[in-house]
Each structure stands twice: as C-alpha cells, then as structure tokens.
C-alpha cells in the first residue's frame, strides 16, 4: 500500500462495528499483510466474507469433508448439506431446487447460459452492449449481436426489437437474449419483465407458431441488493456469484427454469443432474447459501442504510468537486453503486492518490495485468473518452459505514485537486 503523502503511516482508525471483525480469528487479521485501516469502496469487485459464514463453512473443510457423490455416511452428510443449501437458495431466488445448478462462479454460469452447453447453440445469442465480459465475449465468440442502452444504462427496447427482427429476417434463430439485472460498473437496473415482453412481442410478430427465446440475466451484482423472487421472475436463466454478497469466492449458480433446455458445458461424473460435472464445492455451497440468507434477511435494512450513505456520498462529491457528474442517474441504480466521471482527471492517478489515503476504489473492471483499461460500458453509454478517462467507481457494501463515506468525502476532493495541479 502506498504511504500517505504527508509521510505519516498512521491512518485515522475506523469505527469498528463489532459484527464485522473478529480480531482473534486469523481470517480477519489483516495486520500482517499491511492491509488494515483502509476504506473499501470497491464492493463491486468483491466483498468481505461475513464472519458467520466462515463459521458455517468451516466443518465442511474439516470434520464433515465428505464427497456428496458417494453413498456412505460421510457422503450422505455432505449430500444433506448441499440439498439444504440448494433449497435455501431456491427459496430466495424464487425457483425450484432442481433448477439450481452450482457452478464455479458467475463467469461459468454466464458462459453456460449463453452457449447453452456443449455443443454450442446453433443459434445466435444476443446481449446488451454493457454486459460483463463473461457474457459479452461469449456472445462475440459465437457471432452474436449486441443491443444498445439508454443514457441510464438500461437496454434499449426499440433496439432490442430491431436486432431480433433483423436476425429473423436473415434467417438466424436467436437462441438466447442475455440482459444483466444490474450493471457491474454503473449499477443500472434493467426491468426484466419489460425486456421479456419486448422479446415475446418481437418473436411473436415474426415467427409462425409460438417460439420462446430464453431470457438470461446476469444477476451477479444485483443479487446483493434486489429480491430475485420479484426482480428476476421473467428470466429463464439467472447467474449468481457468492463472493459479491459476502460469501466465498469460487462458487456460484446458474438457475435454469425447467422449461428451458440446457446441455452440460462441463462433462464428467454427471453431478448436478448431468448438467454440470465435477465434485461439489461443499463448503462453498454451504457458504453461498448462508450468505444469500443473510443478504435476504437484512436486505430492507441494508438497502435503506446504504442508500442513505450513497446519497451522502454522491451529493457530497457533487458539492465538493467541480467538473464531477453522476454517470447514471442514481434513481436507476442499485443502492450500493456510485459511479462518477470527473473532468480533467486521469482515473489511474486518482486511484493511486486515493489508495495513498487509504481509500480503495476503482475505475471499472481491471484487465488481467492489473492496469486500468477503457470501459466498454462507458463507451456504450456514449460517455466521451475525455470524461471516461476520469471514471471513478465508489461501490458501497453491506459492511460500509458512515466513516467510510466521511473519509471518501475528504480524500476524493483533495486527490482530484492534486491530480489537476500536476496535470497527469
């Protein structure tokens, strides 16, 4: 971590919520790595494992280590844990347990949904232009089409209809439409019922007989904030990832409604009802379910609290930083997201200065080498390159506090001023 510019290594100590840190547990001790006292405003990247979830997972790595594909008591114990987790997740997502396919995470779920499994769908996939690369790159690889978005980052219904009509005219069957529930950079929420209606109308008007085009939604960012029972009802397939909602990394799910055909993408032992082979990640699955339960139980309270913090953050920034604008109207966003573009500032410099003050943020998605790259989301939103260069994503989470916002409101204006002074 960079040292503070004034040379001090002491940072204001954060008000510690007793529920968020278990000082005795090595999992929660960051002192050795030098990672302490920072403000995490990058909850879109990942979130901290909720303390109670580490506890829930622990037995399945030690005493209860069975492989649920077996038949003896150790295996049956694991089966029961996975079954229970699946039921809990299904209840919160609003689907049947049999419709939940556990995956290694959001990317695998997205790949599976868009390809339809092996062999790849013979038809063309369609997605919005602001999808995560886990969807977008698959659509591109399969020769699919992208649909534009409005200034709030939501899929453009007229463009969607036009793309579907063009595909039909050219004789290309559209195999899936993928529209994210909430965008991972700017937080825009799509109304999936309206999207589904638009798809139904387009496919109805052109095809003889009823031909249902499945709607997939990447709900990886949304699941921490929106009730999928209502927000994702219209989706035929839903991708979720545990680590975005206080769960562990390496576990997620693709929900596939029973009426939607899917082939396996990973072949092998036939787990997950032959739809996804590989030994179940039992501790991960248990942690995933526990995290989703916690999110669901606290959703109303969390959303209200975080919305208020976000309001303070964005209003504070708009008041204190000239040339700063909200990328997407906050009324169209999930509660935790705050994305701004700042004129005359280079994001990379800004982020380094913020880090030196203990504020961790991002400009958008990072590439594999760790460098900041131009965002396809901002391009699709029609944000000019000059403004996109000053993109700043400050994403709050379930464990964000008033003091996080206060520190950001001190650090950002100072950092912007310094970057502008140095002109780099």
């Amino acid at each position, binding site marked *: 971590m960079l040292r503070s*510019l004034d040379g001090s290594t002491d940072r204001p100590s954060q008000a510690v919520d007793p529920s968020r840190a278990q000082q005795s547990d090595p999992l929660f001790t960051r002192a050795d790595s030098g990672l302490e006292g920072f403000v995490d405003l990058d909850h879109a990247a990942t979130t901290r494992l909720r303390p109670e979830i580490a506890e829930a997972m622990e037995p399945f790595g030690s005493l209860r280590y069975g492989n649920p594909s077996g038949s003896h008591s150790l295996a049956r114990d694991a089966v029961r844990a996975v079954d229970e987790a699946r039921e809990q997740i299904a209840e919160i997502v609003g689907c049947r347990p049999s419709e939940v396919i556990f995956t290694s995470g959001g990317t695998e779920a997205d790949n599976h949904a868009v390809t339809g499994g092996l062999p790849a769908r013979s038809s063309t996939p369609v997605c919005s232009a602001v999808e995560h690369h886990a969807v977008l790159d698959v659509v591109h690889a399969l020769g699919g089409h992208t649909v534009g978005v409005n200034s709030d980052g939501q899929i453009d219904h007229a463009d969607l209809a036009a793309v579907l009509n063009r595909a039909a005219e050219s004789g290309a069957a559209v195999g899936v439409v993928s529209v994210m529930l909430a965008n991972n950079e700017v937080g825009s929420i799509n109304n999936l019922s309206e999207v589904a209606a638009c798809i139904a109308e387009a496919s109805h008007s052109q095809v003889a007989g009823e031909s249902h085009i499945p709607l997939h939604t990447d709900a990886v960012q949304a699941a921490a904030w929106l009730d999928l029972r209502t927000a994702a009802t219209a989706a035929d397939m839903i991708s979720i990832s545990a680590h975005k909602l206080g769960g562990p990394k390496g576990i997620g799910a693709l929900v596939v409604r029973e009426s939607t055909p899917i082939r396996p993408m990973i072949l092998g032992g036939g787990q997950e009802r032959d739809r996804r082979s590989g030994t179940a990640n039992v501790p991960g699955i248990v942690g995933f379910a526990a995290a989703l339960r916690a999110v669901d139980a606290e959703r109303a309270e969390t959303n209200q609290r975080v919305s208020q913090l976000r309001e303070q953050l964005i209003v504070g920034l708009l008041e204190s930083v000239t040339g700063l604008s909200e990328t997407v109207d906050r009324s169209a966003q999930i509660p935790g997201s705050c994305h701004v573009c700042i004129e005359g500032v280079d994001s990379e410099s800004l982020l*380094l200065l913020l880090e030196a003050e203990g504020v961790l943020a991002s400009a958008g998605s990072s590439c594999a*080498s760790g460098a900041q790259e131009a965002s396809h989301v901002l391009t699709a939103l029609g944000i000019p390159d000059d403004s996109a260069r000053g993109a700043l994503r400050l994403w709050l989470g379930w464990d964000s506090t008033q003091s996080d916002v206060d520190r950001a409101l001190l650090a950002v204006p100072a950092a912007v001023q310094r970057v502008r002074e*140095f002109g780099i």
Partner: protein
Amino acid sequence: MRVLAALSGGVDSSVAAALLHEDGHEVVAVTMKLWGGESDTGCCSVSEVEDARRAAAQLNLDHHVFNFGEEFEKHVVAPYVSDHAAGRTPNPCVECNRHLKFDVLLRRAELLGYEAVATGHHARIVTLLDGSRRIARGADTAKDQSYVLYTLTAKELDSVMFPIGEMTKEQVRSHAEALHLRTAAKPDSQDVCFITRASGRAAFLEQRIELHPGRIQDQDGATLGTVSAVEVVTLGQRRGLHLAGGAAARYVVDVDLPTATVTVGGPEGLLCDELELENLVWAADAVEGVMNLQCSAHGASLPATVTLESIGKGPAMVRVQWHEPHRRIATGQSVVMYADLETSTGLEEVVVGGGLVR
C-alpha cells in the same frame, strides 16, 4: 528516499530495485503497460507484468501497474509510423525514454510524492564540479545505454536513478541469482518492443499506412530490381534488397519516396563530411566545439566539430563537421554528443546533448 522503481519484468530493472532496497530506500515498484499488441520480448504482456510483480514480491516491494498505453501510442507508435511514411528512420526507444519513462512516469511519481524514479538502464549519473548532473556511460561499455537517454536534462537527472550503472551485466545476473530472483536468467530484450521479429517492420506498418513498392537502381539509373515497400528501406542498408550476386557489396545510398526509387552504390557513396541535427536537447546549456558523436545505440563515437546555427529564423540547429569522412546517417536517427568533462570523481565522458538528423 522514496523511490519509484520501474520494473519491466527483466533482470536489470529487478536488480536495480533490489539495490535501492538494500540501500535502505523506501521503494515501490511499478510496471508500465505500454503496448497491448503482439510482441516478441513480451514487454508489457501479462507474463512480463507477472515476472515484474513476482520479482517485486521477492524483494517485499509493493507493485503497481500503470497503463500508459494511450501515451505510448501517441508519443512513440504513431510518430514511428508517420516517420516511416515520411521517409525518416525513427528510434522509438529514444522517444519512449523521452516521453514515457522520463516524462509521464516522472510526473506521475512526483504526483504520488516520490522523490525519484529508478530504472534498470546501463548508464551512470555523475556530478560536475558545479553540482549539476550528467549521464555517463555504463560501467559495462558493451551494454552502455547512455545513447538512448540523451533526452534527459540535468534538471530531470536530479530525480532519476540508474542503480545498476556501475555494474557489468554479469554482475547484475549474479546479483539476481544470489537473490533467487526469477528474472535472473531471462534473455536480454532486443529490438523494438512492439514489432515482432517473425512478421517484422513492414507487416506492422502495413496495418497502419499504405506501403509502396519501389524500384532499385544503380547510381547511373539502371534498374537492378524492386523492393516491396520503399518505406522500410533505410540509408546504408545492404541486406534484404535481393540484388543479383557476384558484384561488390552495394548499399542503399538514397531513398526517394515520391518516385519510390532506391539507389544503391559502393560504400564510398555513403560517406559524408557534414551532418545537420535538429530537435536538439541539451543536458544544460548548448555547447559548441570538438566532441565525440555517436550515431547508433551501440556504435562507436567519433570526433567532430559541432557548431550552432539557426534554421532560417527558426530554432537552433547543429552543424556537425566530421574530422574523418563518416557514413551518412538516415534522417530521423538520433545523434548523441559526448564530451570529456571534469566531475567530482575525475574526468568523465558525459552526454552533453543530442538531436535528430535533419
């Protein structure tokens, strides 16, 4: 001191960072991501960044990646292409040092509160009797990189460090081995980082500009053959012309882009007595007189008399009068001026300035 160490993923810069760390400086490592396209050296690729990151971790240094792709495109790649289109022969390494490492990176370092930027160049920084600093040749004369660093002024040298300048390449490698750095046995990088050896300069330029086939003639105008792209033919070039064998070695003595004509002749046709330099950079004040001039990264430096002139009413230009006839240098190439000056540690050959051949 708080030092930002530029790590390319190679052995020289890893050891440079290690030496600073050993000397008790507060060091943070950074890798500049400059080029996203194909590359032989892998410079800026994920694997080079990974090597840099792991070397930094071995030294217990924090490591950042700065994306200067736009600046690299603007200051190095685009001019490289337009220079070729205009018949000049640019040196992109000089431009990268001028605009990226010792401008953008230096300013970024200052922004972040660092006192100096360190690189793994084989060059030394010496102090003149008046206290101002100059670049001297690296201790390993075969690896000396002072030529590509001539655009650094004395002012910039106040916040630049070349920690391995006093070492030979062998010493650098053995130091890396002693520290078990994973970069210890990596081969030296070669040539232009954004051009692959397999496809070459023409294939790279072809993606960005139209290349024109040309006619090869002798000095009497008789046609000897053709070239597929006159833009990549350089003054003094001998290879790659596919001329009929048997005759004495022939060199390119002239390239005329408007008529797409390449003229070849014997080595005597390449010699000249004078040279003009523009886009001058001086370490401090402009100087005239007898000095040694070097015309390529690892070429010999030869004596000449340098006088300052102006281009019309415009900026200053340098006229170089070689003491012995010298081979002609392609326009756009850098020529670096060295002089023996008294330093705090005795007489040293230092860079006093340089410029581009007009």
